[in-house]
């Protein structure tokens, strides 16, 4: 899915490591690769980058490793299984015995996959099979109007659809079986008659299984000394010959060799030979059903047996279950997220997000400052909103060779102010060599303090700049100066000159390095413990303020070059 411009991706699992501890833990085998990549610019166009770039929302953070964690560096554990349609939890034991399908009333349309609904049948008379009087419900698709009546299925109750369907199916199968048996008995009209329906997949399977069971239990080891001339070339006689010449020590090992078994060779044993008559009948039926009467590959794959050829044979598909998964750091095995096992709540018991630990970078064209985000297409006529439509920035058509100013904003989620150093290659890697200049590569971002602080000291100084009207004289972007600053965010100007079309997408790799003073949240507690416990609590973490460093690569997607 193409992301809309502008976007920011965060790189994880590239071989740059902010804390050296994790690098040391890894095997020495990759150490050389590490050193090679350490100083290299991250290339968003390299094939490997596909697997290490994620939007910030998808990344987790491991507090112990002090690193971002992406799907490649965390492991998943299933917490609960649930049905996406009825939102009921399915116990693990049931998943093991019944498979990952909803055993309640949830079915999907075999034609279009939309969830089926149980509908009451108003006039249930002509369609009801003989004997069952009160059948008055059917499964209907609200999207494509397929209904279970198309395959002649009705239900007596609106609950327990799975059990009713299973009963119906087995009834049908035993009926077909009976017919086959009857036909098999009077064998004289075998070839000239229209052929009977071949046994179903299920029948063949049960036959085959029982055949193998029988043969396995009845296979007696053939007496190697009995010699049957008809079996001269058969494996038992070869074994016998080998036994005669082999040294005595090898004989015991050879004797353990399993004797070959006969294979199934009739439908009653689960083997269905290709018969021209049934094939002809199938082809005739296909010709009659036409294109619309045949199943598509997608429909066939969804069915229990992918051999279903005709739409008339399609059976409602039980809804597949989904899982809720907990995530663990692959390195230190700490839990990163753990959802509530109850499906009804979307809360997490544990959730350590990169969003809360890593500053958020957002880039926008400076020209589009104070105008809507491009993801909100505006169809307002120009008379009503003159400013918005006039200055809307086209990210999809950047002009090559023309300098465009962008505004890069960093939001700090941490409770400590951070010092940020941004690094970009002067020329972006790849064919489209765009020139990039960060006007102010070193700056500070304020701490994420209480939002009320900003509200209470909302000084004129703060709001004066942010309320730049398009009519006013534009503020000049100066090198070495921060463009704008807020409570926990800072904006700097980035100048980008897109290169001439090679690639069309302009992506700028940015190396972000942060430094902040960090104090352990439980520092006071540990201090007390140390005073009291003495030698016992040696594992007290480093106390007092310490400087922490975090570094990572990001990729800013700033737009597309026009005409590329």
């Amino acid at each position, binding site marked *: *899915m193409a*992301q*809309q411009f502008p*976007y920011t991706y965060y790189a994880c699992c590239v071989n740059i490591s902010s804390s050296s501890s994790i690098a040391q833990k890894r095997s020495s085998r990759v150490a050389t690769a590490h050193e090679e990549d350490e100083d290299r610019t991250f290339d968003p166009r390299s094939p490997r980058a596909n697997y290490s770039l994620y*939007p910030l*929302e*998808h*990344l*987790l953070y491991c507090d112990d490793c002090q690193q971002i964690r992406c799907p490649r560096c965390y492991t998943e554990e299933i917490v609960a299984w*649930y049905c*996406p*349609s*009825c*939102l009921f939890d399915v116990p693990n034991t049931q998943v093991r015995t019944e498979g*990952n399908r909803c055993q309640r009333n949830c079915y999907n349309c075999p034609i279009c*996959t*939309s*969830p089926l*609904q149980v509908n009451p049948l108003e006039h249930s008379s002509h369609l009801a099979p003989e004997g069952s009087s009160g059948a008055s419900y059917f499964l209907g*698709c*609200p*999207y*494509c109007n397929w209904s279970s009546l198309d395959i002649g299925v009705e239900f007596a109750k609106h609950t327990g659809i799975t059990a009713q369907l299973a009963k119906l199916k087995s009834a049908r199968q035993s009926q077909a079986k009976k017919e086959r048996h009857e036909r098999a008995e009077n064998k004289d009209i075998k070839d000239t008659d229209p052929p009977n329906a071949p046994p179903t997949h299920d029948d063949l399977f049960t036959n085959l299984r029982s055949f193998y069971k029988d043969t396995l239990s009845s296979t007696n080891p053939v007496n190697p000394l009995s010699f049957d001339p008809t079996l001269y070339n058969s494996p038992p006689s070869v074994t016998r010959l080998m036994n005669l010449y082999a040294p005595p020590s090898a004989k015991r090992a050879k004797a353990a060799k399993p004797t070959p078994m006969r294979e199934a060779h009739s439908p009653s044993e689960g083997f269905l030979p290709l018969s021209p008559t049934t094939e002809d009948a199938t082809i005739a039926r296909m010709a009659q059903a036409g294109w619309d009467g045949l199943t598509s590959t*997608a429909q066939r*794959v*969804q069915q229990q047996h992918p051999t279903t050829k005709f739409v008339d044979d399609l059976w409602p598909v039980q809804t*597949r279950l*989904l*899982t809720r998964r907990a995530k663990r750091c692959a390195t230190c095995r700490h839990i990163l997220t753990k959802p509530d096992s109850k*499906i009804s709540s*979307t809360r997490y018991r544990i*959730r350590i*997000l*990169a*969003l*809360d*630990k890593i500053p*958020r970078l*957002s880039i926008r064209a400076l020209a589009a*400052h*104070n105008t809507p*985000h491009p993801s*909100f*297409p*505006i*169809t*307002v006529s120009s008379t*009503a909103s003159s400013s*918005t439509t006039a200055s809307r920035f086209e990210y999809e058509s950047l002009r090559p060779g023309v300098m465009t100013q962008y505004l890069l*904003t960093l*939001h700090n*989620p941490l409770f400590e102010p951070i010092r940020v150093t941004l690094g970009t290659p002067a020329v972006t890697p790849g064919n489209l060599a765009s020139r990039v200049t960060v006007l102010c590569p070193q700056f500070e971002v304020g701490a994420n303090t209480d*939002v009320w602080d*900003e*509200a209470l000291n*909302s000084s004129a100084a703060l709001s004066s700049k*942010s309320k730049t009207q398009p009519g006013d004289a534009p503020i000049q972007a100066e090198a070495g100066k921060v463009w704008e600053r*807020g*409570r926990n*965010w800072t904006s700097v100007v980035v100048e980008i000159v897109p290169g001439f079309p090679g690639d069309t997408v302009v992506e700028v790799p940015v190396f972000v390095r942060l430094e902040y003073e960090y104090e352990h949240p439980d520092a006071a507690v540990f201090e007390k413990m140390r005073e009291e416990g003495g030698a016992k609590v040696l594992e007290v973490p480093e106390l007092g303020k310490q400087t922490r460093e975090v570094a990572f690569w990001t990729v800013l997607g700033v737009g597309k070059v026009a005409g590329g």
Partner: protein
Amino acid sequence: MSRPAAASRKSAKGEYIETDTGNKISRRAQITGTANITLGGKTVIQSDVVLRGDLHRLPQRKEDGTMERTPTAISIGRYTVISSGCVLRPPGRNSGGTWRYYGMKVGDNVFIGPNTTLSSASISSHVHIGASCTLGNFSIINSNVKILPGTVVPALMVVPPGVVLGGQPARIVGELGEGWGGGGNGVGGGEEAWVEGGELRELQTMPAFVVREDTGGPNV
């Protein structure tokens, strides 16, 4: 939230009418049955949006013989954006020979893309609906769902929380990351308004997603 109360209310001739609770409603939205519509506050309704508040459940006679108040037809939460050209039509069905409408609920921080038609029974919070979607009668969208542009959600479908929905008919095509819908303290604040007529800081600005194959959703 943190923003000081808007000091200068827009002049009467602007594109938007701002209510006391901060809702911004385009003058060119077509809203019928306004008495049966509730807006939570800070919600934006853009131009050419159709809100059918007149399609409400008929008031029932109470035990003491008096009629109850007209039930709410559409209730919309806070920080919700309804883009231009959307049609919100409360779900209805034939019950006992008469056609009856039922209430429609839209949660907080919901974004509804342009030219989308909705007849859902409920849409929970932190739902992002792309452009030109159709949400069928009585469909239920749980919280933290992203619906890709052009998706058709069949009538009566229930969408579980935390998934990406796409296709015609709608299928589960992926899962959203844990950070969707605002992880915690870090998000929001400081951003300029990116939405026309709104200062929707709470709304996540188009977080992307990663399509996962192993989610157990139906085959596409």
